[in-house]
């Protein structure tokens, strides 16, 4: 028998939880408004900022100098390693020590489209780092001795760490997009770059890439007024345009297959024509959530199709992701692991999984979970300062607007089983880009997997 008091307590709880849900919703809407970057133009430089009034700031110069824009192979990594080296005003050592004294972190990294020079620091040090980043992009000296003594060795070291999974992803991009986006993200030790990669070429590329129209300054945690003031005064020295030009072409999806024999682990990447940055294709994001790969919860493979496929094969990882670029996208399933047989098995399962989505044999419950996962991924991306920063900058330099999270969220919620089915069907009907790296005796051909190439 249920006592009266227990009943009323339960209803109280239910009431409370509903009101709690409302509060949570309100907080959530506010968070998504805050999460978007505010784009402006200051003295010819594209600037985007958002301010959560926290004690730290992340300031980044995002240049249109990723691997797709390099005129000669390897120049992007050269430019990346030359970041924060000797400038006309101060030495690399001084830059390092001064930022250490201010408790800051400096980093330089690149994606296929953008080269990012980033500084994370305490809020009050904004002027110092605005000046530093402007100096790095306009006054670095690109000296021969630094290239030979420091830059080259680091590049060789990083090259030796490129693993087979990365090689497979690069190869899939290369068959999918040929030139431009098909350029490898990091050249392997076998890639002949030494004849192109020298300080002269890197300096010329810097001169072409670091112009006002080619860069965006993105700040997370800086006030808009302060940022525009310092950008205006320090980024004056950045040239408006230059005679040198970066490589640019319009990406076209080709598709195909490539197989590379390499020692070490095994990797297969299955790619399809995906969604680009500007394109609003929520079903691709949901499909990535549905195929998933990484379990979100402990001690369970989770609901995602790829993690179910890998659960029986220890040591093999698979995950699905859409690589979005300014004018093209590659939807990939990346499978890697030590055992070639295991990788082969998971690759077969993965194709079966995507075919089952196209058949419409996915339970409605899983679709709901996938939409929730996609929503989480989107919000997490826009909140995490690193990923959100790069995303905002990449949008700005390609001429787009930073992503408005609330619009994308609404689109995601509209995805249902039928839309997902149609999206998977379109992917399978188009040409796939398949790359296999490792033990080619075992790794399957695209045709064996049942894909069109």
């Amino acid at each position: 028998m249920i006592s009266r008091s227990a009943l009323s307590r339960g209803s109280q709880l239910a009431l409370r939880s509903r009101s709690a849900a409302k509060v949570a919703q309100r907080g959530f809407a506010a968070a998504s408004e805050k999460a978007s970057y505010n784009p402006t133009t200051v003295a010819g430089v594209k600037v985007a900022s958002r301010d959560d009034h926290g004690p730290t700031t992340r300031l980044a110069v995002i240049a249109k100098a990723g691997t797709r824009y390099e005129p000669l192979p390897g120049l992007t990594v050269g430019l990346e390693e030359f970041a924060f080296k000797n400038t006309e005003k101060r030495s690399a050592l001084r830059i390092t020590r001064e930022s250490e004294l201010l408790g800051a972190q400096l980093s330089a990294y690149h994606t296929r489209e953008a080269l990012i020079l980033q500084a994370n620091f305490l809020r009050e040090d904004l002027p110092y780092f605005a000046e530093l980043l402007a100096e790095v992009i306009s006054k670095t000296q690109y000296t021969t001795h630094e290239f030979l003594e420091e830059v080259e060795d680091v590049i060789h070291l990083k090259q030796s760490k490129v693993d087979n999974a990365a090689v497979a992803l690069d190869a899939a991009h290369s068959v999918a997009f040929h030139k431009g986006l098909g350029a490898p993200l990091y050249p392997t030790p076998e890639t002949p770059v030494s004849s192109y990669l020298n300080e002269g070429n890197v300096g010329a590329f810097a001169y072409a890439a670091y112009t006002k129209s080619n860069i965006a300054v993105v700040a997370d945690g800086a006030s808009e007024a302060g940022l525009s003031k310092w950008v205006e005064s320090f980024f004056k020295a950045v040239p408006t345009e230059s005679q040198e030009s970066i490589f640019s072409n319009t990406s076209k999806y080709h598709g195909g297959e490539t197989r590379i024999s390499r020692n070490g682990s095994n990797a297969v990447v299955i790619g399809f024509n995906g969604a680009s940055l500007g394109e609003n294709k929520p079903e691709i994001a949901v499909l990535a959530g549905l195929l998933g790969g990484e379990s979100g919860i402990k001690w369970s493979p989770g609901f995602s199709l790829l993690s179910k496929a890998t659960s029986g094969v220890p040591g093999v990882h698979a995950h699905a992701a859409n690589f979005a670029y300014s004018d093209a996208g590659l939807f990939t399933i990346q499978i890697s692991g030590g055992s070639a047989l295991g990788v082969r098995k998971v690759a077969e399962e993965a194709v079966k999984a995507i075919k089952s989505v196209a058949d419409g044999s996915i339970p409605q419950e899983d679709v709901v979970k996938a939409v929730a996962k996609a929503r989480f991924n989107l919000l997490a991306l826009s909140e995490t300062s690193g990923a959100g920063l790069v995303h905002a900058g990449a949008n700005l330099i390609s001429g787009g607007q930073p992503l408005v999270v609330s619009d994308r969220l609404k689109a995601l919620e509209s995805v249902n089983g039928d839309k997902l089915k149609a999206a998977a069907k379109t992917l399978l009907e188009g040409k796939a880009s398949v790359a296999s790296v490792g033990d080619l005796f075992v790794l399957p051909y695209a045709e064996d997997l049942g894909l069109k190439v």
Partner: protein
Amino acid sequence: MSAPSLIKFAAKRPWLIKLLTPVANWYANAAGYRQMGLLADDLISEENETVLKALSRLPPDVTYDRIYRIRRATQLSLQHKILPKSEWVKPEEDVPYLAPLIAQIEAEEAEKAALDTLAPIRKH
């Protein structure tokens, strides 16, 4: 290390420069290295880290010329000869090619030492 020099002291005193320039020119010619086809910077002792580092920063063609001059001078020294007068190094060709690099490396070292012994002053 670069060769010992009073140039910084003299540079501040134009009259001293004016006075010493003819003497310096006479000394450089009388020292005899130009007659052996060497430049003043070829005479800097190689046996220390700074100069070795500076030598490694020379462009390949400059290094080649330097080795050639030193080998030729060694040969001349063995033979107790000097070059024919037409091949002597002219004063305007005797330019420092290594000293600027040494100065640069010394400045780097000095900056490193200064930064390594920094004492931050707290604002609060």
